[in-house]
C-alpha cells in the first residue's frame, strides 16, 4: 500500500480509452463498476467535445460479483454493435476486472460471432502498466490487428507511394496540446514536400490502417505513445522511424535532418538545409529571441523542469541550449523509461529526479528555489504556494491547458510559443520582485467611507459569526445589504436571522 495524494499518470484503462476515442467510429466498452466512466466527463469537459464520448460501461455490480458477468458483457458488446455500428469495439479491462479474472477473451470471441464490427480485448494489466504505457500498447495492438487481418485477406497495400510520404503516429485525445501539434506537423510536412499517408490514431479509420506500409517512414513525435506501433511496422514491413521530438529550434532541425537522411536512403534527393536555415534565422522568432537583449537577462537564471519524458526532455534542452538558462533540476514521472530520460538530459542539467511522488518534486523545488518552474499543474500549484512562477509543459493538465487558440509546442511556431511561455514566466517573476522591493504598486490604505463606517447598528456575536461564513469576496456586499435592510426595518441588533431575512428580501 502506498499513501498517495496525487498521481501523474492515470490508470491503464485511461490510456486504452484515449486510443479508442481518438479513432473514428471505434467504441470502447469498459468492464467496470458504476462511476469508473469518469473518462467521458474529462473528454466532454477538458476537450469540450461536441459529440458523445464513444465509451460505455458494462457495469460490474453486486450480481456480477456473485455470479460472474455471464451474458452481460457479450450482450453489451452486441447491443452497441447493433445500435451504432462501430468498426471496432474494444473491451477495456479495469482494476476491477484485473482481479475478477473473468475470461474476457472468451467474451470477446463470443461477441464477435454476433457482431458486424470487429471486437478486441485491450491487452493491458492495471497493475503492470500506467495510462501512457497502456496507450502505447493499445495503439500497437490495433495497428497489428488490422495489418494482420489485411495480410490474411491479402488486400494489404505495401507498395510505397510515388512521392515521399509519412505516417504520424501518436497524437491522441486528451494529449497535451496534441491537436495543435498535429496541425503544426502537417504544415511542416507540407513545407518539406512530404505527403501525409496516415495520422494514427487521431481521426483515423481502422479500415485505412492496411495502407500504413505505403509510407516511406513513420514520424513518432511523442516518446510515450507511438513507439511500439512504429517498432512493429519497422520489424514487419521495414518502415524506418524518426523518433526525434521536433520541439525547440535545434531539435526541430535534427528531426528534419533525420527525415532527410531516411528519404535520401530510399532514393529521394531532398536537401532541407536551406529550409532549416531560413526558418531558423528569419521565419521563427525563437533563434532571434535567444540573441536579443531580453534573453540576455535570463542568462544563468535557475529553472526546474518536470513532466513526461517528451516535454521535460525537450524543455530542458531548450532552456539550457537555446536560452542559456541554468536547469538546476530536470525530472520525469515516467519511471518505467528512466534510462532514456537520463541519457537525454544528462548534459543539460545539474541534477536529475525520477519520481512519481509529488512530494519529492515539491521538496526539491523548495530546496533549489529556482526563478521559474516548468512542470505540470501540480508544480504550478507548488509554485503558487512558494511564489515561484510556473509554465505548464505537460499533463496532468486542467481545462485551461486545452486552449482554443492555436498553441502548438512543436515545429517553428511551437518554438515561438515556448519562447513566450518561458519569457512570460520569468518576467512575471522579476516584476514581482521589483514590486516587493519597492513596496507594491500603490498604497493599500484607501480611505473610504462605507455605509457601515459610522454605523449605529449592532452586530450580535452569532450574526458576525454567520457573516464570517460568507466567502470573503462577497462579504462586504452581504454586510452592506444586511445593514441597509436592518435600517429600513428599524432593527438595531443584527442577528443571523436578520442577515438571512435580508438575503431573502433583496434577493441576492
Amino acid at each position, binding site marked *: 500500500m502506498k499513501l498517495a495524494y496525487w498521481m501523474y499518470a492515470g490508470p491503464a484503462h485511461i490510456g486504452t480509452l484515449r486510443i479508442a476515442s481518438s479513432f473514428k467510429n471505434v467504441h470502447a466498452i469498459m468492464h467496470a463498476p*458504476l462511476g469508473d466512466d*469518469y473518462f467521458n466527463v474529462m473528454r466532454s469537459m477538458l476537450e469540450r467535445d461536441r459529440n458523445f*464520448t464513444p465509451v460505455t460501461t458494462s457495469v460490474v455490480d453486486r450480481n456480477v460479483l456473485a455470479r460472474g458477468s455471464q451474458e452481460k458483457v457479450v450482450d453489451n458488446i452486441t447491443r452497441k454493435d447493433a445500435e451504432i455500428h462501430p468498426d471496432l469495439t474494444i473491451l477495456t479491462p479495469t482494476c476491477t476486472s484485473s482481479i475478477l479474472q473473468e475470461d474476457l477473451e472468451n467474451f470477446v470471441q463470443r461477441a464477435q460471432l454476433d457482431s458486424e464490427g470487429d471486437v478486441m480485448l485491450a491487452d493491458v494489466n492495471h497493475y503492470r502498466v500506467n495510462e501512457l504505457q497502456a496507450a502505447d500498447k493499445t495503439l500497437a495492438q490495433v495497428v497489428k490487428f488490422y495489418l494482420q487481418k489485411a495480410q490474411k485477406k491479402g488486400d494489404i497495400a505495401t507498395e510505397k507511394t510515388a512521392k515521399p510520404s509519412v505516417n504520424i503516429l501518436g497524437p491522441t485525445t486528451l494529449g497535451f496540446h496534441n491537436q495543435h501539434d498535429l496541425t503544426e506537423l502537417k504544415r511542416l510536412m507540407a513545407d518539406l514536400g512530404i505527403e501525409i499517408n496516415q495520422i494514427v490514431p487521431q481521426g483515423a479509420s481502422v479500415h485505412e490502417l492496411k495502407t500504413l506500409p505505403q509510407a516511406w517512414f513513420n514520424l513518432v513525435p511523442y516518446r510515450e505513445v507511438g513507439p511500439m506501433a512504429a517498432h512493429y511496422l519497422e520489424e514487419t514491413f521495414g518502415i524506418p522511424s524518426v523518433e526525434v521530438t521536433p520541439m525547440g529550434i535545434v531539435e526541430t532541425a535534427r528531426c528534419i535532418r533525420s527525415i532527410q537522411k531516411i528519404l535520401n536512403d530510399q532514393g529521394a534527393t531532398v536537401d532541407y538545409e536551406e529550409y532549416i536555415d531560413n526558418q531558423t534565422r528569419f521565419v521563427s522568432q525563437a533563434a532571434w529571441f535567444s540573441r536579443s537583449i531580453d534573453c540576455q537577462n535570463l542568462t544563468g537564471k535557475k529553472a526546474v523542469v518536470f513532466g513526461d519524458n517528451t516535454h521535460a526532455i525537450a524543455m530542458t534542452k531548450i532552456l539550457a541550449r537555446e536560452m542559456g538558462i541554468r536547469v538546476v533540476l530536470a525530472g520525469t514521472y515516467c519511471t518505467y523509461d528512466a534510462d532514456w530520460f537520463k541519457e537525454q538530459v544528462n548534459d543539460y542539467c545539474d541534477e536529475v529526479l525520477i519520481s512519481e511522488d509529488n512530494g519529492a518534486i515539491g521538496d526539491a523545488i523548495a530546496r533549489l528555489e529556482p526563478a521559474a518552474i516548468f512542470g505540470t499543474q501540480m508544480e504550478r500549484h507548488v509554485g503558487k504556494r512558494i511564489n515561484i512562477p510556473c509554465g505548464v509543459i505537460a499533463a496532468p493538465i486542467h481545462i485551461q491547458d486545452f486552449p482554443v487558440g492555436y498553441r502548438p509546442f512543436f515545429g517553428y511556431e511551437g518554438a515561438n510559443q515556448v519562447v513566450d511561455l518561458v519569457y512570460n514566466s520569468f518576467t512575471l517573476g522579476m516584476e514581482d520582485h521589483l514590486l516587493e522591493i519597492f513596496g507594491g504598486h500603490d498604497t493599500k490604505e484607501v480611505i473610504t467611507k462605507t455605509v457601515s463606517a459610522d454605523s449605529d447598528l449592532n452586530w450580535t456575536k452569532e450574526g458576525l459569526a454567520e457573516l464570517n461564513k460568507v466567502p470573503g469576496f462577497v462579504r462586504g456586499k452581504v454586510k452592506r445589504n444586511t445593514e441597509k435592510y436592518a435600517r429600513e426595518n428599524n432593527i438595531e441588533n443584527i442577528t443571523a436571522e436578520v442577515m438571512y431575512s435580508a438575503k431573502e428580501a433583496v*434577493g441576492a
Partner: protein
Amino acid sequence: MTEETALNFECETGNYHTFCPISCVAWLYQKIEDSFFLVIGTKTCGYFLQNSMGVMIFAEPRYAMAELEEGDISAKLSDYDELKRLCLQIKRDRNPSVIVWIGTCTTEIIKMDLEGIAPKLEAEIGIPIVVARANGLDYAFTQGEDTVLAAMVNRCDDTPQVEAETEVEPKKNGFSRLLNFGQKEEAETQETEYKDHPPLTLFGSVPDSVETQLTLELKKQGIKVSGWLPSKRFTELPSIEKGNYACGVHPFLSRTATNLMRRRKCKLIGAPFPIGPDGTRAWIEKICSVFNIEPEGLDEREAQIWESVEDYVKLVRGKSVFFMGDNLLEISLARFLVRCGMTVHEIGIPYMDKRYQGAELALLEQTCVEMGVDVPRIVEKPDNYRQIERIMAENPDLVITGMAHANPLEARGFSTKWSVEFTFSQIQGFTNTRDLLELVTRPLRRNNNLKELGWTDLVHEEDAKRITV
C-alpha cells in the same frame, strides 16, 4: 408510501453515468473539520478524485489514497500491517480526531476485512476509525455520504440529552462562559422560547450557513434541534438516545435513516425534503405535526418567498424539464419545478427508496394534481442511450444531466444544467430558493442571450443523431 400511487415507476438497464460514491470525501472532509478520509483503493479511484475535485486537491486536503499494489491484491502483504503503517503516518502528519476508511470496489472484491481490522487498529493507535463501504458496486454518487453517515450513527453516544446538557455543558464551556456573560443569559432566555418536545436530531451534511438557516427556521416554530449528524467536528457528534426523533434533510440518506431507527431506536419523521419553499414548508409542517405543534406564519413565509423569486419563476413557467438522473435529488427537484409551473418529461434516478422518500413522492403527486400536470414517469437505474433517444424525440426545454452529456447535448441545441452543481450548492430552506432557481435558470438565461445569433446546432448533420454512449 402505498401501492395505490398514480406515480409510474420503471426500471431500465443501469447503463448510466454518475460519479463514484467515493466523491463524498470531497464535501465531507470539509464539513467534518477534524477528520481524515483514507480511500483504500486503486489508481482508478485516485484518478477520479484528483480530476473531479479540481483545485481542491492542491489545498492540502485531509484525504488521501491508500493505493493498493499487486502485493496487496495477491495477499502477499498483510492488510493490517499496511494500514497500520499508513494510519500512523497520517496520525503523525495530521493528527486527526477520526480516520474514515472508505472501502472501494477493490476492497470488496478481495474481501479485505476493514470492519474487522478497524477496531483492533483503533485500539492500537488511539484514533477512532470509521469504516464506510462507499463503492461503485453498490452505490451511486451521493449515496457515498449515506454510507459514511450510517457508519457514524454508531459513533454517536447515547447519554440522555437532557442530563448531558445540564451536567456536561458548564464544564465544557466554562471558560468561554466567563468571557461571555451576556451571551449566556441570552442563551438561557432563548431556551424558554422552545416548546416542550422530545429531542430532535437532523441528519445530512449541509454547509454551516444552511445548518444555521434550517435550525432558525425550526426555532421560529419553537422546535429545538438537539444535534446534527454530521457535526462540524467528529468530537461533537450529537448524542442520540432511544426514543429520540430524527429527520433527514437529503433524499439520499436511506441507510442512515435505517440505522437511526434500527440501531438507535430513533423515531424517523418521514417528511418531504426542505428543497424549495414548498418542500421547506412541508418539511417544517411535518415535523410540527409529529410534535403536535401548530405551525405559525408558514403561509405568509412561503408566499413571500415565492413573490421574491417571481422574476426567476417566470423564466421557467410553462417550460419542460428532463432529469437524466445521477444524484438522487431528482424527485425533490422535480417536485419543486412542477410547483414553479414546469412540466417534467422524466425523472431518472439511480435508486428509489419508496419508503424513505415516501412523503416526498406523495408531495410530488399532490403537486402535479394541484398544478394540473401529468405525473412524470420515474425511471430507476436509467439507460443513458435510451434516455438520449427520448430527449431527442421529446425535445425538452431543459435537461438536467451529468457532465458527460452536457456539452454534447448543448451542441445539439438543448439547454442543459449539470446536476453535480445541485449537490455542491446551497439549495435547502426558504432562504436559498433564489440560489436554487439561479442554477435552474442559468442555462435558459444564457441561451436567451445567445438566441438571436442563431448558433444553436453546432454539430455536423451526420453527427447530430449519433448517440455513442
